[in-house]
């Protein structure tokens, strides 16, 4: 059976959920061979084996943390040359897309980014994408070379599927371009204790209607009662009320949770682009004419400062 290379996104050996989703998709095409780089790479093996990785190629070097992107491209290329896979799958993060693109160019392949589904086809894997602010769904494939495809979080279920997950050291020699861009400082994001925005099953977002940074505590309280991630519209981020890392929309994160709750968000195209594929959409807005109501499964026309705290209280009460 053909092997499929899966690039592993992990933090010190803790595998992030989108990588496990990739393994589900990879198994539709062939046998997943994982590539884990950097500090803690070997510690990823157990989780990857549980989810279907037949092999885990690992390599650690200081270059991965000290220089931007290119060392990882060199390593993924080394894995590609060793394995000769039927496809290469990479999580669709900002960095993932850059790594995948450079690899595709080096190996003479095409690249598809931000797939939301993947299936085997007669002439290679077929990727589903959601385009034009999620108003169209396309199906594409790679016409030349080995398919290199990046896949968005929440595109597939995480499915346990025990496999060998044999750890093998990957031999990597860095190119002279690897050290071109130095990382001279790194400030980790403070943990909020909430789920990752792109991975969360429920997202509660606030927009212009929230009116201030302090008022976001109302949104956070609802999110915490539901175990949800907090999002913000571009208007709220541009106003400085919430960090850009939480922005949902075209220039922020694109999310596809089971439930999306929009509070005080009108639903401009820039926002819709980032949340339109959510399974269930709920909105609270004062303006009955707000375009967000065209998308909702349930909408409340009303003041979010009344509705959201009441909802939070009700959720807490029902939890007992």
């Amino acid at each position: 059976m053909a092997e499929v290379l899966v690039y592993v996104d992990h933090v010190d050996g803790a595998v992030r959920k989108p990588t496990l989703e990739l393994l589900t998709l990879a198994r539709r095409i062939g046998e997943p061979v994982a590539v884990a780089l950097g500090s803690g790479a070997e510690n990823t093996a157990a989780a990857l084996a549980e989810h279907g990785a037949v092999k885990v190629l690992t390599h650690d070097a200081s270059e991965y943390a000290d220089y931007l992107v290119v060392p990882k491209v060199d390593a993924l290329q080394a894995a590609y040359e060793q394995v000769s896979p039927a496809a290469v799958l990479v999580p669709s993060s900002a960095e993932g897309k850059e790594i995948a693109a450079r690899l595709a160019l080096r190996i003479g392949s095409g690249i598809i980014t931000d797939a939301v589904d993947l299936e085997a086809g007669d002439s290679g894997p077929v990727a589903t994408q959601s385009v034009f602010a999620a108003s169209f769904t396309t199906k594409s494939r790679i016409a030349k070379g080995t398919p290199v495809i990046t896949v968005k979080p929440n595109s597939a279920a995480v499915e346990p599927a025990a496999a060998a997950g044999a750890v093998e050291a990957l031999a990597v020699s860095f190119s002279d371009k690897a050290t071109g861009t130095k990382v001279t400082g790194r400030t980790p994001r403070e943990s909020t204790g909430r789920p990752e925005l792109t991975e969360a099953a429920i997202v509660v977002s606030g927009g212009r209607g929230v009116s201030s940074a302090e008022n976001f505590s109302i949104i956070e309280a609802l999110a915490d009662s539901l175990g949800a991630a907090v999002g913000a519209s571009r208007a709220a981020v541009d106003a400085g009320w919430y960090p850009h890392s939480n922005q949902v929309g075209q220039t922020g994160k694109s999310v596809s949770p089971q439930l999306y709750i929009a509070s005080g968000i009108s639903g401009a195209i820039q926002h819709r682009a980032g949340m339109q594929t959510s399974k269930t959409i709920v909105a609270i807005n004062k303006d009955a004419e707000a375009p967000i109501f065209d998308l909702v499964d349930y909408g409340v026309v009303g003041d979010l400062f009344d509705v959201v705290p009441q909802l939070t209280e009700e959720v807490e009460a029902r939890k007992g």
Partner: protein
Amino acid sequence: MSLRIVVTVKYVPDATGDRHFADDLTVDRDDVDGLLSELDEYAVEQALQIAEDADDAEITVLTVGPEDAKDALRKALSMGADKAIHVEDDDLHGTDAIGTSLVLAKAIEKAGFDLVISGMASTDGTMGVVPALLSERLGVPQVTLLSEVSVEDGTVKGRRDGDAASEQLEASLPAVVSVTDQSGEARYPSFKGIMAAKKKPVESWDLSDLDLEAEQVGLDGAHTVVDSAAERPARTAGTIVKDEGEGGKQLAEFLAGQKFI
């Protein structure tokens, strides 16, 4: 010596318009008004700021696209860029990201550069991979997705806000930079700028000017194929209630019915 900045820009269909696909499954550029991709305005803005801080700098805006793409160049010139290059050729129709990066790289090399600045992604394709591809093709460092950027003594520095951490980056010129919409509000063209732009030079190059063959680009040269494009079915109309004092409770009832609580 003058700092040579090339800003890559894209002419895209207006995102607020009714965007759709043409019969050959390329983006329909005829039925929706086009404009300079909003995210490229940030690249032009940062180029202008870097040029203002430099002793001597020249900004060239570069686009690959059909006849109308000149509008995007004109906008960038009216913001303050010095000159423009338009790569235009009928054989470019349907070119994918890999092909676009080839054409841009050839044009950037021909124009001469110390610094390439791009937006974080186009507003139509939204892939965000062209800056990385340019870095790979030109063989120079990529310093991408910056929310803050500065150039001093032949070194570019910037801040890249990632999911897990915010990183400080540094590379020697020549380099490829991309900037996000967090890098700073783009200026509006002044009346004077708009008038001045009309006199600024816009060069037109075709594939032969770049020593490229038709089969390296366009739909035939593309490494990817779109097999189908379907309009997403409109979401079925949901229940909308007016809050009469029980809106939160009604919403909780709905969420409980859907097993979310």
